[in-house]
């Protein structure tokens, strides 16, 4: 499902002394099946932006078109929209409320008036997608399981609605490296195997660099940079001025190039760096 955002402006508490512009003339397009990373420091407008994409906020100005349907004005479309654009908030496990894992994940599908069989099928599928064992966990209280598991229950609750677009706001915040890698791996599979359109909001350049097709960088309520990871990461000074950082490995490559070493510029993962340095050293010894 494609998303088109045209000249989107959002002003909080307009007309009051607390008026503040959270989004200022933002335009971009996301293609069906794309995996996009959204970065920016706290207060840059990225959370305000994603809340527009499933109709939680309405633009002050501008248009949003999802799957060729203008969602800006038509309030009738909001049920359709929330079903198709799933939004996983920051710390989504704080929103768990049911007595069992099963009931919590089933809450959304039940509200779609689906049959019990269909609800059960969806809960099973959603749990499988996030790597939770159905039989051993379905009857547990969501408050007795580990933090990483709780987060996956919350994500499963969104997946059980079978959205076409999945937006995740900092899905790995506060998780340890193992929990983070598991969740990112599952998100990657949703994109690869199910063809879902994914928007990942993250502070971690390392995670973004490994996963996404394209990066949108927000700063001061506007889009500051947009493009493939290697394009965006080449703007080191601008990113640092915005309080963002490039992956550590990109600093190494930059340092090497400044010292006159023959390595390509657009490298931002450990694998790529190792390959480039080996190629450089071996090329030298063969010469």
């Amino acid at each position, binding site marked *: 499902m494609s998303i088109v955002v045209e000249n989107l402006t959002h002003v909080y508490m307009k007309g009051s002394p607390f008026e503040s512009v959270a989004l200022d003339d933002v335009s971009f397009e996301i293609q069906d099946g794309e995996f996009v990373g959204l970065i920016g*420091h*706290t*207060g840059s407008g990225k959370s305000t932006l994603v809340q527009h994409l499933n109709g939680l906020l309405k633009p002050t100005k501008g248009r949003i078109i999802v799957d060729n349907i203008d969602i800006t004005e038509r309030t009738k479309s909001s049920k359709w929209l929330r079903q198709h654009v799933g939004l996983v908030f920051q710390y989504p496990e704080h929103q768990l409320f049911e007595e069992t894992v099963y009931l919590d994940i089933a809450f959304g599908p039940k509200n779609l008036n689906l049959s019990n069989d269909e609800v059960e099928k969806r809960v099973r599928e959603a749990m499988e997608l996030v790597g939770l064992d159905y039989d051993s966990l379905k009857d547990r209280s969501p408050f*007795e399981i*580990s*933090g*990483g598991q709780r987060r996956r229950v919350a994500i499963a609750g969104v997946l059980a609605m079978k959205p076409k677009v999945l937006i995740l706001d900092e899905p790995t*915040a*506060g*998780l*340890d*490296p*193992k*929990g983070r*890698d598991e969740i990112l791996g599952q998100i990657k599979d949703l994109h690869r195997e199910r063809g879902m359109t994914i928007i990942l909001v993250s*502070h971690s350049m*390392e995670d973004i660099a490994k996963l996404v097709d394209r990066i949108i960088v927000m700063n001061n309520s506007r889009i500051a940079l947009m493009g493939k990871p290697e394009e965006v990461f080449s703007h080191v000074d601008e990113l640092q001025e915005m*309080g*963002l*950082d490039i*992956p*550590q*490995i990109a*600093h*190494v490559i930059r*340092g*090497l190039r400044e*010292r006159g*070493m023959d390595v390509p510029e657009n490298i931002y993962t*450990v*694998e790529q*760096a*190792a390959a480039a*340095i*080996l190629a450089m*050293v071996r090329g030298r010894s063969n010469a």
Partner: protein
Amino acid sequence: MELMIEVKDVQFDYLSYEGQEVAALNGVTLDVKKGEFVVIIGHNGSGKSTLAKHFNALLKPSKGVVLIKGIDTRDEDMVWEIRQTAGMVFQNPDNQIVATIVEEDVAFGPENLGLPAEEIRIRVDEALKTVGMDKYANSAPHYLSGGQKQRVAIAGILAMRPEVIVLDEPTAMLDPSGRREVIETIKYLNKHEGITVVHITHYMEEAVDADKVIVMEQGKIVLQGTPEDVFSQVEVLKGIGLDVPQVTELAYRLRVEGLDVPQNLLRVEEMVDAICQL
């Protein structure tokens, strides 16, 4: 050198969901010297927070002994003495702030020590200045960023004039700039105020400048030493699901491929130098 924290063969048992007794800590021995900066790393469930809670008598060992400046944490009469010596900062800044004005929040601890008002004023002003939050003394905490709130929480501990500060994942819920603020504050306290720091984290980058790094897994210490020593054990760290800094991982991969780079590289400049010398 004087020992601030001594942990001797400590075991801590708790009852699991299934009703079984589980050892969250199992034979842990370590010590922290006065003025040291110690980082404890481990993933969730490794026992690192349980260990931290032993450092100010929030938990007491099932077996073994914990001494804080020579005081046994099992001694009920000395609990306040211990908590004044070792202050704790937790993960979520919102759970630690109790007042509606920043300076009142920082004053909460000293007020409970029954100090005279003038002394409290001095301590609060000093503490806020030390963490760089003096400008916000009269602000409401909920208007502050996560990093700022966490610095207020640290100021609240500082106003108690502790000799040790134990920080349990203080950066886990912060964005990169908030994380940087808090780390710089902690380093400042250690270097310039002489406060002993125990910093618990799962961000490896935060351990690079420590005097000592302790790696926990399944209630035990699996590695202990300088950052260089610990991070050179790339395989052990990866085996227990921990990250190493990208630079260290690159060094590891290049060594596997037969290039002659040192394994104990931690910083970008060191890596660049090493490759330029090939």
